[in-house]
């Protein structure tokens, strides 16, 4: 089997003349935890919909483990489990039926589906609600059910569209741990999220999408290294009257008793030595590195 889980080439998706996805191309490797980040309207859900068969697309090619999502749609769809952003449950079914029916659509016998449904309901803490209708579930329980439904046919690829939107902190952390474990066990995960912290914690590689175009796509660590900016804040005993010459060469600003350097944190020794040479007394040192969120915000602002 192809070790590229999802391959997207020159994907274009228009809605009423507006380009939601503008000629994007990328591959997701098997076993990868891939983050798809972007502000609202960036084209994330449109891309997911094109991959999963919920939306048609104008041009381009999408393959899932080598199967074309248009020509060989049945095979391509069998590999994917989708947890959509919006809840879309069948109101005629109860919790257990939702899982068992969805499993059946994948051609899996009922006995196996029922067993898996029970396991997943227990895993996600919704077993007690198995006979309840959807209306009786809270937002958090619905989110658990959405993810359980996406996993019912044991997909090789799990696509999660904003899985932690509107869930409490406890469930969010539970889901993070669960997804990490699932990924370690071999499931390829494609995650879109507004919580950049989530992507920073979970993803191997991230793609930043803005206005339907890819701004950056790289290994998360490399991306952070490439774009991260450090801020070294040094609190001085006394406010500086004049700036020493050997400090002027740095990118800095003065904020009261603080001397703030916008330099890479590897330069900290050099900066401290420069200060010491001028016999300036230091009270405190604080180093802050920019997070993926800072990088994301900067990119989107400039993109």
């Amino acid at each position, binding site marked *: 089997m192809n070790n590229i889980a999802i391959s997207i080439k020159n994907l274009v998706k228009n*809605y009423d003349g507006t380009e939601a996805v503008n000629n994007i191309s990328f591959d997701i490797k098997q076993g990868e935890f891939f983050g798809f980040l972007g502000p609202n309207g960036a084209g994330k859900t449109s891309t997911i*919909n094109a991959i*999963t*068969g*919920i*939306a*048609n697309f104008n041009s381009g090619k999408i393959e899932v483990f080598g199967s074309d999502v248009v020509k060989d*749609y*049945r*095979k391509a*769809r*069998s590999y*994917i489990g*989708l947890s*959509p952003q*919006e809840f*879309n*449950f*069948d*109101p*005629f*079914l109860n919790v257990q039926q939702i899982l068992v*029916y*969805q499993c*059946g*659509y*994948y*051609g*899996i*016998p*009922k006995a196996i589906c029922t067993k898996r449904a029970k396991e997943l309901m227990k895993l996600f803490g919704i077993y007690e609600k198995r006979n309840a209708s959807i209306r009786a579930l809270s937002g958090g329980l619905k989110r658990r059910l959405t993810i359980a*439904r996406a996993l019912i046919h044991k997909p090789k690829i799990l696509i999660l569209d904003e899985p932690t939107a509107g869930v409490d902190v406890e469930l969010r952390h539970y889901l993070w741990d669960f997804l990490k474990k699932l990924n370690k066990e071999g499931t390829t995960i494609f995650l879109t999220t507004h919580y950049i912290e989530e992507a920073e914690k979970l993803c191997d590689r991230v793609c930043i999408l803005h206005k339907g175009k890819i701004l950056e796509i790289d290994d998360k660590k490399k991306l952070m290294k490439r774009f991260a900016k450090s801020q070294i804040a040094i609190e001085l005993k006394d406010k500086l009257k004049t700036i020493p010459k050997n400090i002027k060469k740095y990118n800095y600003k003065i904020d009261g008793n603080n001397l703030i350097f916008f330099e890479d944190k590897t330069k900290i020794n050099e900066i401290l030595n420069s200060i010491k040479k001028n016999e300036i007394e230091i009270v405190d040192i604080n180093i802050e590195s920019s997070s993926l969120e800072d990088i994301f915000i900067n990119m989107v602002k400039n993109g």
Partner: protein
Amino acid sequence: MVNWIGFYTLTKREISRFLKVWSQTILPTAITTLLYLFVFGFAIGRILPDINGITYLEFIIPGLLMMGLITSTYANNSTSIFMMKWLNFIEGILVSPLSYIEMVGAFILGGIVRGLIIGTVVYLISLFFYSGSIFNPILFISLMIIVSLIFSSLGLITGLWAEDWDQLNIWSTFIITPLVFLGGVFHSISLVPESLQIVTKMNPIFYMVDALRYSMLGISESNLALGLPLIIILAVSFFFFTVYLFKIGYKIRR
């Protein structure tokens, strides 16, 4: 390879949906049929002359069966697919590995089962009013299945097309119901002026009602050699057109 389990699951979902709300999907047709038979057949029918040697009450029984079957199979599938679209849970089916022909086949089989249940209910009710003999049982059952297929498909087509509840009702109010009433359910074609007879002969439902009347009572007012192929052609065309609409994702894939 056919995804039989997937096909069976979706068919089961469709059947359990209308059975769950049987008081809205089965009972109204039974009550309406009973009322029609009592008022038109039993009360008014007694003073009307026989048509082609059979009583008026017997004459309207096949028509009422066909009317119940057409309206309920059409309503079944148009409502089912429209709700799936409206509440977005059609996505659960779209992302699955069911083929488009399996999807459409399952929806239509669900409609056919409802049609057969309605047909059986109407037939059982009619036993209070006539002997219950069926002239050609094979043709009788085949017609119920084929006509259910036609209107299940048409229900899917209009359910896909409609963007709100008003649009969904347009077809049933302005097209299906008039065609059913003008299709010879309550009257013999010989009783209407010649100009209206020509119009009636252009109404495909007339051939369906008449063929069913032939299968039950052995009398016919139309040319069955024309009517039966027409019914089969309509069934095949509607079925494949519906599959085509699913394939292109007409109003279901964004």
